[in-house]
């Protein structure tokens, strides 16, 4: 039963060999291949089959916000290494590498912008930074985004994308669950709406905290939204998994989200929802 205790995706030594490595711009669903600029122009959605590629946080903000309106906040908050954590490599080294590879200081970008001229706050996660894992810095930045939105009375649009809590920060990463929950509670007390756009993947600790507490919650097509991912469920329980296990489509059917909105329609959808709360 040891695997029963795992709530993030697990790689195993005896796992089947990974499928042949494909170029990241090759669509995993239909095999179409695109240049970066083609995908960029198409909001990282496959023109042929509609598959949603992962979208970087800044690109997404560029898509939602009026041109040039985004002002980033708390960009200088970075992770510390409270446990001197060392697995096969030191945590600090992994952090530095993530920063070099992504150009991001952490797995979330927060700030404010306008949408059709109306101000709103943003908290957008970036999966490419250590799998979007939530440590103290992510928890703090998300909480500050809530504070800023509450203080200014402007709605908060949150886009989770995360494999879960950041193990390298041990128990402190678990404490980011109640921390962000408190931040959302205070946002709600200020009667400021929280709109959540769940992107692939929204799992484990992030799903079990702020991601599940939106007033309106939508998801991207095909996004994995699960507390425990399919592989771990399979390994632990030996249950046969439904084909759409944990996907946005199943979550809609079971009543966990309000709608599935394809990326190209999200801007208009958000604009409409935000109008209702003005």
């Amino acid at each position: 039963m040891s695997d029963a205790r795992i709530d993030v995706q697990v790689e195993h030594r005896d796992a089947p060999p990974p499928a042949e490595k494909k170029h990241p711009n090759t669509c995993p669903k239909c095999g179409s291949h695109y240049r970066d600029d083609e995908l960029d122009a198409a909001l990282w959605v496959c023109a042929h089959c509609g598959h949603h590629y992962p979208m970087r946080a800044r690109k997404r903000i560029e898509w939602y916000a009026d041109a040039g309106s985004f002002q980033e906040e708390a960009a200088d908050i970075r992770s510390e290494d409270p446990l001197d954590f060392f697995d096969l490599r030191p945590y600090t080294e992994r952090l530095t590498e993530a920063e070099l590879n992504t150009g991001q200081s952490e797995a979330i970008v927060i700030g404010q912008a306008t949408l059709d001229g109306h101000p709103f706050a943003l908290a957008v996660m970036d999966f490419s930074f250590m799998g979007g894992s939530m440590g103290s810095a992510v928890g703090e930045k998300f909480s500050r985004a809530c504070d800023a939105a509450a203080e200014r009375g402007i709605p908060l649009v949150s886009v989770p994308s995360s494999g879960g809590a950041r193990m390298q920060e041990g128990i402190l990463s678990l404490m980011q669950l109640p921390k962000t929950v408190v931040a959302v509670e205070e946002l709600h007390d200020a009667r400021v709406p929280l709109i959540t756009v769940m992107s692939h993947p929204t799992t484990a600790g992030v799903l079990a905290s702020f991601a599940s507490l939106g007033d309106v919650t939508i998801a991207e097509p095909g996004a994995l939204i699960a507390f425990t991912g399919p592989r771990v469920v399979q390994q632990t329980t030996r249950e046969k998994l439904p084909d759409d296990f944990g996907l946005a489509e199943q979550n809609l059917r079971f009543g966990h989200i309000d709608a599935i909105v394809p990326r190209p329609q999200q801007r208009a959808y958000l604009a409409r929802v935000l109008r209702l709360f003005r």
Partner: protein
Amino acid sequence: MSERDQEVNLRQRLSGLSRLPLLRGARVDGEAKRLEEQLERLQQDTSDEAIWRSVELARHPERPYTLDYVERFVDDWVELHGDRGRADDGALVTGLGKIDGRTITLVGHQKGRDVKERLDRQFGMAYPEGYHKAMRLMEIAERFQFPFISLVDTPGAYPGVAAEQHGQGGAIARSQAEMVRLTVPTVACIIGEGGSGGAVAIAVSDRVLMQENAIYSVITPEGCAAILWRDAGEAKKAAAAFKPDALHCLDLGVIDGIVAEPPGGAQTDYDTAARFLKAALVEALDELDETPGEELRRRRRAKFRGMGVFA
């Protein structure tokens, strides 16, 4: 004194002084400073072996579970069953009772003793229905202004198809949200395994205590090892790296106090373990009694908002 005796001695003192903020030195100035120094010395020595020993004791099959404690120090216990929606989750027991004459609401994970009971109670891994049931108790606590006590002992929330379909993540999130809305005193104690989201779901409390051999962690040692070392067999190394033992949790400010166990662990003497636990719970409740509800809630929120270390 041998080092082990010293450690036991210190831990007993720590639990005796669990009226915190212990390590932040406010309450018991001179004593706290001395203890802190001692603690620091000990911590340098908290060997990987000692941490692993906690992991083993926390999961000991003979370790007392929630109902063993209820039987020993809760009077007039009335267990309440069912989430009023879908099911009654045996992995989380909930009910009303009296401790030292005051009515309390209590929720706690319950692992099974024999194979059948283990299966019935899913090894203490709750479904969303379990957390819904706990939220029902929170409502009762708030309505009648009864203190809310939680005993945490779970490897984690249940990882299955139905649990996902019934909204495991959302249930854990909403249970925490409910806990930070309460205006009654709330005390949690990790009495075995404090496994990840399934544990914190019922532990967003004014006072969070840990028994001295309990563990509290974001992931199991095996899970962490499987991911970072790509080998679940490296669990000992993983545990040494993420430090789920009570002393480290206290040091990181995640818990407020350590509850002593009988020598050798809680499984050796249920009655003594229960006596220590009861004393700690009563002490925490007494301490919180004077504070108005709104203030309790404000402080509880501030405490969790402050958690984390960043630059």
